[in-house]
């Protein structure tokens, strides 16, 4: 057994991924390798320090008390993004129809402004629901 393999097994032992077992090949390697013995000792010491230094964390009852007032509103209906999108498209179409009889230059300006508005609305919606898309991709 070489040192990298021995050290990987030692790390698995520290992580608790290996059941306690004699593992004679590893013990033979350790008996003859001072550097791996030092590595094992250091890793055990580090594990103890990490257990002490990263203590358990949990929330208390205050968390729920503070959360409840923020939940009073009903959840967003599932059809919200589709309806918002359709409403935006309908508004843009109606505004374009209204702008058509105007002189060509005005139509260009209004068309450009509506395209920009459409882009902004789309970006806001995409951003609002990006969490959901990201989760769905996992």
């Amino acid at each position, binding site marked *: 057994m070489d040192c990298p393999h021995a050290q990987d097994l030692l790390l698995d032992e520290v992580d608790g991924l290996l059941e306690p077992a004699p593992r004679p090949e590893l013990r033979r390697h350790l008996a003859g390798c001072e550097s791996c013995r030092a590595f094992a000792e250091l890793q055990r010491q580090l594990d103890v320090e990490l*257990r002490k230094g*990263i203590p358990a*964390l949990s*929330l208390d009852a205050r*968390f729920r008390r503070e*959360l409840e007032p*923020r939940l009073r509103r009903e959840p*967003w209906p*599932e059809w919200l993004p589709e309806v918002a999108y359709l409403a935006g498209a309908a508004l843009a179409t109606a505004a374009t129809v209204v702008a058509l009889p105007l002189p060509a230059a005005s139509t260009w300006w209004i068309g450009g402004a509506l395209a920009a508005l459409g882009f902004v609305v789309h970006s806001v919606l995409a951003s609002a629901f990006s969490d959901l898309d990201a989760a*769905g991709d996992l």
Partner: protein
Amino acid sequence: MEDDRLHELVRQRSYAEAFEGLLSRYQDKVFRLAFSYTRDRARAEELAQDVFVRMWQVLPRFDARASLSTWLYAITRNTCLSALRYDARRRTRPLDEVRERAADAPSASRDAEDLDVRRLVDGLPETQRRVITLFYLEDRSLRDVGLMLGMPEGTVKSHLHRARRALAGAMSAQGAR
């Protein structure tokens, strides 16, 4: 409440009951995941609240493509990353807040060894720091850490081993000084 039961409640549109079950089962995990990003208990609590408010708002859109916990953890990670970006943009903080944070900082009378190991962990690259922090917070479960960070267990193990090797090297260097 088990995940299958939570899925069933969402399918039946019993959102309030599903949300209550989700909160009971996952509030501490969401908090610890947020803490692994922020390293600040108060900020992690704020973000955990934001996550559950967001979850409440969007629960009707859950479509079961991923499990509820996968979805919740992804929302938590996205919320934390956005918050960290926002915090990084706020270059100056009000003086009172700075004073308050200084008062919350560990005092010199605390165990010096604990402080050293925390400082060493803080010096690790982001992903290694998150992995090793969550590994100890989550009772040494590679599976839970993988689910929370959206990583395969093998990747978690490899980050964990790299972190352990780096910390051991830093500890030896500190001991040699």
